[in-house]
């Protein structure tokens, strides 16, 4: 039997107001794929951050290779051959692959016997060799910003391998990948295990665990619920353990009843700040009672498209028509009052003012109208009453009710606040961009049900998401965006998940 390479003994970590990890003990064997399963906020990332030296446990001990270690910095973790692929990549975007990988541990050669210089050729060769050994296809001389997300991830993996990491931590590695890319990544992970590495996989996607992992630890609200043998446990059981109760996977959805056209986008072209065309000649329509979903890999113009519809970005060509009115050049407020609601991708920088109270955020779209404002005086009582109503209706959890600073709320509740505000506007057209990103299963289901409910109420819904499962389970019509172009628009029932995935990668271009 393989020996334990890592052992957590009674590890506890507290943050203001929460116990992130509560008396956790388990061990990981050398050369296995060990999954860490739990909802957001269950404490997975905190636990791994302690192993990686970003936090120190308040109580308890961490043993690496049977030895008690105080991992007080990532450098210490690296010296113990522990490496981590973070959810948000840490790469210098205008450096090449090699430059990123060797950053901090550059191989030095001496020109003319004494002039020190980075031996880039040697590094290139070594990385080339590493990428061949582990099947991590990437060109060492390409510049990061020209690489796809999946390729950047491979660079992150190579970075660990170059540093001779033996224990590899993957933090939600599949969150931003297409189905085909996920297959490829899981293959890489298996390959790494076969070469003798120990893999720790942090995820909340059960299917992936089922596919690659041998054992799996389930965390719920900071507590270890149990260690499961993946092969003999059903996904249903895992899910129940993770959430703490049975959950309904399938979302009930009545057949769609399309009404009149609410939003019409024709030949829309949008340029970014560098005058590059990021949305190219896009046309589509959204009807009442329809969820029109746009699928695509991150950074293919989705956010720019949404911003142009909402009035946050300028349309260079083409028109946007809402309820028969041309709003291509209308002011944001004009669009909002006409009947546009928008749940933006960036909750913290666009959707909310974090240093405002929950109440102030909930009235952000209608503070200027009666009854919230009379003359130019805000009616605080009315605002509070309205906020309390939304807090109750949408089950927004906040420590001090309407007076809570939004910054102090959890991500899920922040998103609930935005969705509550936007849906309560009662607009005919609602746009959701990445509405469930980073949320736990309970919140995800609730939000998807809300979208479908709005559709059934005769609203036109535009859903832009990177999560293909979300699109497949909610959409009535699917459009696939690639490199700023809508490659394909199809009825959801007439296009398969794999087909959508192929369009997302630009592999398939014909209708």
């Amino acid at each position, binding site marked *: 039997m393989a020996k334990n390479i890592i052992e957590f003994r009674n590890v506890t970590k*507290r943050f*203001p*107001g*929460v*116990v992130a990890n509560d008396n956790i003990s388990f061990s990981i064997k050398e050369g296995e794929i060990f999954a860490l399963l739990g909802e957001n906020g269950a404490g997975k990332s905190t636990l791994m951050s302690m192993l990686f030296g970003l936090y120190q446990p308040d109580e308890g001990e961490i043993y690496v290779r049977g030895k008690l270690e105080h991992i007080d910095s990532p450098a210490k973790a690296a010296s113990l051959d522990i490496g981590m692929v973070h959810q948000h990549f840490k790469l210098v975007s205008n450096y090449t692959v090699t430059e990123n990988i060797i950053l901090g541990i550059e191989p030095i050669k001496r020109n003319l016997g004494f002039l020190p210089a980075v031996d880039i050729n040697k590094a290139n060769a070594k990385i080339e060799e590493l990428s061949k050994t582990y099947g991590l296809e990437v060109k060492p001389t390409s510049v990061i910003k020209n690489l796809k997300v999946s390729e950047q991830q491979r660079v992150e993996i190579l970075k660990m391998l170059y540093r001779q990491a033996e224990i590899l931590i993957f933090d939600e590695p599949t969150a931003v990948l297409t189905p085909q890319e996920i297959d490829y990544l899981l293959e890489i992970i298996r390959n790494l295990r076969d070469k003798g590495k120990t893999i720790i996989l942090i995820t909340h996607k059960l299917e992936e665990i089922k596919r690659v992992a041998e054992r799996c630890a389930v965390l719920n609200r900071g507590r270890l619920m149990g260690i499961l043998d993946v092969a003999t446990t059903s996904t249903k059981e895992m899910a129940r353990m993770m959430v703490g109760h049975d959950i309904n996977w399938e979302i009930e959805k009545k057949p769609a009843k399309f009404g009149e056209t609410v939003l019409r986008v024709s030949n829309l072209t949008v340029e970014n700040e560098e005058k590059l065309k990021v949305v190219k000649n896009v046309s589509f329509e959204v009807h009442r009672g329809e969820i029109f979903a746009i699928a695509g890999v991150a950074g293919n113009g989705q956010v720019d498209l949404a911003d142009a519809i*909402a009035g*946050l970005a300028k349309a260079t060509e083409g028109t946007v028509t809402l309820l028969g009115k041309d709003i291509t050049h209308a*002011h*944001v*407020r*004009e*669009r*909002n*009052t006409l009947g546009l609601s*928008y749940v*933006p991708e*960036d909750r913290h*920088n*666009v*959707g*909310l*003012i*974090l*240093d*405002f109270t929950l109440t*102030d955020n909930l009235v*952000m*779209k209608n*503070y*200027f109208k009666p009854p919230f*404002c009379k003359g*130019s*005086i*805000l009616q*605080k009582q009315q605002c509070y009453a309205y906020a309390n109503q939304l807090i109750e209706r949408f089950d927004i959890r906040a420590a001090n009710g309407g007076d809570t600073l939004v910054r102090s709320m959890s991500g899920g509740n922040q998103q609930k606040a935005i969705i509550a505000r936007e849906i309560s506007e009662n607009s005919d057209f609602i746009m959701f961009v990445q509405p469930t990103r980073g949320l736990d299963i309970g919140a995800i289901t609730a939000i998807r049900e809300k979208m479908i409910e709005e559709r059934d109420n005769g609203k036109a819904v535009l859903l832009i998401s990177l999560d293909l499962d979300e699109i497949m389970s909610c959409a009535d019509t699917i459009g696939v965006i690639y490199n700023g172009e809508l490659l394909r628009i199809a009825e959801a029932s007439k296009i398969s998940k794999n087909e959508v995935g192929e369009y997302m990668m630009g592999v398939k271009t014909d209708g």
Partner: protein
Amino acid sequence: MDKKNNKPKAFWLLRIFGGKWQFLTIPLLSILFSLIAISIIVLLIGKNPLTTLTSLLQGSGWLPKATYAAHKNMFTDFTEFLDAMTPMLFASLAVIVAFKAGLFNIGVSGQMLLAGFMATIFIGYSSLPSALAWPLVILVGIVMGAIVGGFTGFLKYRFNINEVVTSIMLNYIIQYVVSFFINTRYVDAVSRQSRAINPAARLTIVNFEANDLRFRIPLCFVVAILAAFLIYLLFSKSRQGYEIKAVGLNPKAAKYAGISVGKNILLGMTLSGALAGLAGVTYYLGYYNTIQPNTLASMGFDSIAVALLGNSHPLGAIFSSTLIVTLTKGSTYMSSIVGVRQEIASLITGMILLFSACRAYIKYKVDLKLSTSQAKGSERGKV
């Protein structure tokens, strides 16, 4: 109390600094720290810290002095203190309004100078009676300050030029242009400053006699206090205040909510300039009655510190300007009585600012301690 429970030793201390009076207790704590630090320094010089600190209060009219000159007593000292505090309060309000709009108005000094200069040459050198001159001085001050501030805001909103750069450059431009005109046209041959203004136009009544005492009466002190309350109401109750705050805290989200970002930047900066203009006229046509060429009032920069000390809150500014002006005003008396250098007062000011800059850290520590001890407490309760 059960000794074995997990509460930290000084739990009552946490209560004081972590509770809802935190906004008051933590600044007081930082003032206390700075007083301790300054006492140590005074002791090292070999003087008595207690007399040093009380002499500061005596010098600014909070405590009675041992002896007074003719026609003076503690009360006349106090009105003099209020006279000095008036422009400081306006100036710090100017900084606060800009902060709320997410802008840093470092050009308060320049705005003050231009407002003071224009009011001096148009009204101060006229022979208008007080009833006309006073409102006109104030009006000119507001308008000139608003123009300079508004121009800075316009450049920011139209061309996205950083307001710090603009206002520092405007400071220089105004300083040299105003000095040129003072030196060539309005200079007093003896004092080398601008000629003194007509007393009827001055916003401070000097030598107001009553009960054999001679008072200085700062006419605009009440206006300044009123302004603080109005600004407070603007930001807590009005639609406009909500919009300015939204733009200041997160312009992207403000735009998303349909708020016009440019308009509010312009508005915030104009309002800030107008308040700086009021500071200018109460300074150059109130506290003083002349303008010294080639210098910017240091008050314009001190007001930034005062605004921060007051937690960027309009009512907090009343307290912080009281404190800082007490120190500067009392420093002359302190140095003559105790025999320490006047600069010690600046040192105290510096210490207070230093310690109040640590406020966020203290708050963070206290909140952390408090919540972990509560978490432990509740855990214990469960088991």
